[in-house]
């Protein structure tokens, strides 16, 4: 018997509300729409659920050119045309030219799979509407072969969105919704612990303090996110930076070491440098 309740994994710290959202979606077989600041682990969640519940994972990454039917199937008319000119035998069966999409593959899975529809907001505005029936009834019709594809097990569907487009109401109505908040200091400490179990408490404390200080800076264009914090700590470890180097008792030193991992925008770096400059002047 596989696990049925998701409680996070050793690699992924789930907050109680997130666990609740995932479990409700699993129990009721509803798609779960995940939003949140970039870098809060939206995409990773699907992989972790699949791992925790020991289910196969199917991923469908949406691009601005994606169409709903790409996830179902595609009819490769061009290769059929080419094959017909070469006189190939397989050209007689249209089935040979139907390429299954991730949704179809997930529907065919023998155990309940996890399906990730990543960054649904990248696609055209109409895209989610074209998937309503598929997500609702978990079936679709292949016109070319006149067959109805039905899900053997309702997949656990996770949909992530970066909020670049408003999703249609009819679509939202069919989903559960969870907004991953930016983790508070405690949760963040847990997350870092999970990724760097051997990190010295001292360094972790200092790193978190300066990380949250950076985030608090007014006027930042792009606030550093969890994944950037993890990268930064990785760098700190790789360079063997002592905790003292991060210590904030020197107000003149605002720009943290290796800030390139945290601040990704030249305007933000400028802003920081100005703040450092102002602080130096104030300190004099």
């Amino acid at each position, binding site marked *: 018997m596989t696990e049925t309740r998701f409680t996070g994994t050793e690699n992924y710290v789930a907050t109680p509300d997130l666990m609740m959202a995932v479990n409700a979606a699993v*129990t009721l077989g509803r798609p779960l729409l995940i*939003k949140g600041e970039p870098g809060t682990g939206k995409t990773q969640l699907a992989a972790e659920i699949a791992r925790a519940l020991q289910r196969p994972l199917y991923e469908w990454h949406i691009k601005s050119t994606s169409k709903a039917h790409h996830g179902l199937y595609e009819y490769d008319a061009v290769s059929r045309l080419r094959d*017909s000119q070469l006189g190939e035998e397989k050209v007689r069966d249209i089935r040979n030219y139907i390429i299954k999409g991730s949704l179809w593959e997930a529907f065919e899975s023998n155990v309940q799979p996890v399906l990730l529809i990543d960054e649904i907001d990248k696609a055209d505005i109409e895209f989610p509407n074209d998937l309503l029936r598929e997500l609702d009834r978990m079936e679709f019709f292949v016109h070319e072969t006149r067959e109805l594809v039905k899900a053997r097990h309702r997949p656990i569907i996770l949909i992530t969105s970066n*909020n670049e487009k408003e999703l249609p*109401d009819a679509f939202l109505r069919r989903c559960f*919704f969870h*907004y991953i908040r930016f983790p508070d200091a405690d949760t963040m400490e847990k997350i870092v612990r999970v990724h760097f179990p051997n990190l010295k408490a001292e360094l972790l404390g200092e790193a978190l303090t300066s990380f949250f200080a950076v985030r608090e800076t007014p006027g930042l264009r792009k606030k550093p996110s969890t994944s950037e914090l993890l990268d930064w700590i990785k760098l700190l470890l790789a360079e063997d930076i002592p905790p003292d180097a991060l210590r904030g008792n020197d107000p003149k030193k605002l720009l943290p070491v290796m800030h390139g991992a945290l601040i990704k925008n030249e305007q933000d770096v400028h802003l920081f440098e100005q703040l450092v400059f102002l602080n130096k002047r104030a300190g004099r």
Partner: protein
Amino acid sequence: MLVRFFTDLRAGGVPVTLPEFLSMLEALEARVAALSAEEFYYLARMALVKDERHFDRFDRVFAEHFEGAEKLFEKLMAELPPEWLKQITERLLTEEEKQRVQALGGWDKLLETLRERLREQKERHEGGNKWIGTAGTSPFGNQGFNPEGVRIGQGKSRHRRAVKVWDARDYRNLDDDIELGTRNIKMGLRRLRRFAREGAAEELDLDGTIDATARNAGLLDIKLVPERRNAVKLLLLLDVGGSMDPHVKVCEELFSAARAEFKHLEYFYFHNFPYERVWKDNRRRFSVVTDTWTLLRTFNPDYRVVFVGDATMSPYEIEEPGGSVEHWNNESGRVWMSRITRHFPRLVWLNPEPEERWQWTPSVAITRELVDNRMFPLTLDGLDRAMRELRQRGGPGGVTSRHGLTPDHSADAS
């Protein structure tokens, strides 16, 4: 109780629909949430609210609706000290009732049933269909047992928290009435999208290929089409300095959102009101300038023009030649503005000042008149209206300003 919660949510501005409400009930029935008020809160929010901008409204309705519910949950969660309960119950019950208690199997049995019932109750409450004493099926209800009156376990809660999740109102700044962030601006600007196929043909046109191949008697004839792009051209004219300083942030946001959204975006700055020159770089605003005539000649009328400015200044700055606070302008701002409105039929003015304050500033009224009433506040709603305006106005040369006539006093200027 939950139905009222549903109607309250709708009244509170959270767009909840019946299917969503039903799916929440379904989730409750499936016992997805069975442990605490907090879980119920998360579940309800997940099932009913589909946009983080509505979280705050949801929190408010929730707090109002379930005030006190938390306390009750805590009481029900607490362990029952049997001695104490027995004592109190004895005091509360009449002789007759005590006999009925005996008939139920004695104190121990009764306590066990009570505890069980309470445990069930806690879950059932979340299902919203049964409370002690209200359903009429509980033996405790009959005996006048009131968990609230008895105050079982109060003060020893294991689940007390300093601030309830829904009272924390962490999502306040995601509400769209309050703030206009880059994301919101982008959403607003997206209304202006108009896709068209332009440029080099590099995408396979499948339908065209099939069609051409069929016409070509089955010989493969591949057709290509240009990629679809947002074809809207935008000219952004931004007021900088002086009274605009408090609005720098929102203008920056608008600017960065527009930059990301439009392929054909041109921007220029002006100070207070457009005169005969605009500039691109504020640091070299006196050395590197663009003649407004050049601007009018360079950009076709199919550019949509968005002015951003508070239009707050002395009326002389618009009406009189030489009115500019920075330099000597030979022709009045009014003349320049009417030239611009005549050249660009699709034009709006976004004003970061709140709409209700406009009437107190004469220069705002004049500017409004000059742009033919197409002034909108720089809020989400205003942006929305502005974008709609830009979409609707007829094609190039379609509409000319009705008020933008050149005033004759401009002639006797210099």
